[in-house]
């Protein structure tokens, strides 16, 4: 996967990813319009399909709302690369089919650099600067869920 990079800091929480005031609406497309709006009002307007978020520690801390990774995914985000993730966000992201990479890429990318990621091989490349990083790929059973597009299609496949 390949996309432009959006750079954020530590502790990007689920309330800024998708504020509680929008959570009565279970339509993911309308939620995606508000993704990250309390942190970066430009994001939802300018994000393009496949863009990559590169962030610091504890990405997705806070509530268990699955709407957080859903809003990012439906806004177009192709992957989130962070030094560490809050555990529920990490699970939710895999379950809704949003690739997450636990890796410190903060020193490797500036905003608008282009990132190329291979999840299976554990390789991340900054196409703008040519720098390359390596990360531990996710366990196979999690990669399987991502390959199927999330836990719903993955489970449906197993049940039928």
């Amino acid at each position, binding site marked *: 996967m390949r996309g432009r990079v959006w750079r954020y800091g530590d502790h990007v929480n689920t309330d800024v990813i998708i504020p*509680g005031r929008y959570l*009565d609406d279970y339509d993911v497309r309308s939620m995606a319009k508000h993704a990250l709006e309390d942190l970066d009002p430009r994001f939802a307007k300018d994000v393009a399909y496949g863009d990559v978020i590169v962030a610091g520690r504890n990405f997705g801390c806070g509530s268990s709302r699955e709407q957080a990774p859903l809003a990012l995914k439906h806004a177009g985000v192709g992957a989130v690369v962070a030094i560490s993730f809050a555990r529920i966000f990490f*699970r*939710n992201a895999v379950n809704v089919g949003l690739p997450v990479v636990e890796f410190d890429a903060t020193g490797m990318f500036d905003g608008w650099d282009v990132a190329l990621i291979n999840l299976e091989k554990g390789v991340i490349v900054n196409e703008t600067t040519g720098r390359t990083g390596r990360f531990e790929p996710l366990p196979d059973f999690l990669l399987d869920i991502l390959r199927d597009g999330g836990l*719903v299609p993955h*489970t449906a496949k197993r049940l039928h």
Partner: protein
Amino acid sequence: MKNEYRGECDEGPMEAMTFAQKVLSRASGREAFPGEIVSAKIDLAMSHENAALVLRAFNEMGAKEVWDPERVVLLFDHRVPANTIKAAEGHQAVRAFVRTEGLPHFYDLREGICHQVLPEKGHVLPGMLIVGTDSHTTTYGALGALSTGIGATEMAAVWATGELWMKVPRTFRFHLTGRLDGPVVAKDVILHLIGMMGADGCDYRCVEFVGPVVDAMSISGRMTMCNMSMEMGAKAGVAFPDQRTRDYLKGRTAKEWGPVLSDPEAEVEKEIDLDLTGLAPQVAYPHSVDHVKPVEEMTGIPVDQAVIGSCTNGRAEDLLAAERVLHGRKVPDSVRLIVVPASREVYLWALESGVMASLVRSGAVVTNPGCGPCLGAHQGLLAPGERCIATTNRNFRGRMGSPESEVYLASPATVAASALKGQIADPREAIG
């Protein structure tokens, strides 16, 4: 039936295990070691309004029926009564599902907050493995359960199969000694710990609270501690069962239970000894829960709103602590004091004991049991530039309304003292 949640690993020549290992070993049917991923059988599965999302995923998976209706508890607390048409539609969909599936444990809008109602109604027992589609599901650790938050889609898989993959957590143990003075309570302790550890300081860990301070704490206080353990990243927080636990469960459950404890020789990743004697009331300032300072460094900051309630601090002893500060005095017109009892049981107690009447005389606006304004859905949102001090659990930007508002977190006594003064105030002075 006896000791259903205890399993065999409390007997026999197994090697020493932590509490989290024991629960996950029983639930997965094999010896579980920290760092391993196991498929665990779930004892209790809780969802609130987001059951609507769970339901959607459940249907999309093509699942036919709930694996064990006795083990599923559903209720509404985040938006009660429904605050928008969309919220009402979500409620409607879940009610219909409850009827057609014949789910026996459903509490509609009248009972209160999930994390208060499940213990009150006797659903939570020591040693259980509990998951809930809410991050503060860690609260049930106060009764000695291993309990954690999960997402809606994976809850659909739990409904379908009764199982979930889980990483066996390593353990941090907080050994809390000394004595809490005056109005200093569990909330001040947990805010202090979060400030010390940081918002991700206990990531993925099971956090055990032990020592004389915890022994002396009520179940209500232990619930506050376990509830907010997740604000330092913990997968679960636990206080081990004792006589207080037995007293609490008596009359709430007819089931037999036995405590599940960490073995004394079990390997713990980190032991943190802390003497809390002299600890001051604590306040978390915007916009992160780990921005914590003693109240004296924060006094004088004007507030527009004060909120007492939530799954963190909406229980009887919390309302009582606030009433003791406010008793017979009036909150100035410039402050909106909002009180949200955590449950119907708490609400009735407050009415019958006279505590509620006293709070209302002091100027409180009382809303129905539920999450209230904590998550910024309704019942007291903040305008740009406004400031609120609350007994709730998060002060993230925009949490309680406008992204240009501010939320400070503190104990019920500190919030009450601040409401009286119209600015952040030290409850030790208010009580005098």
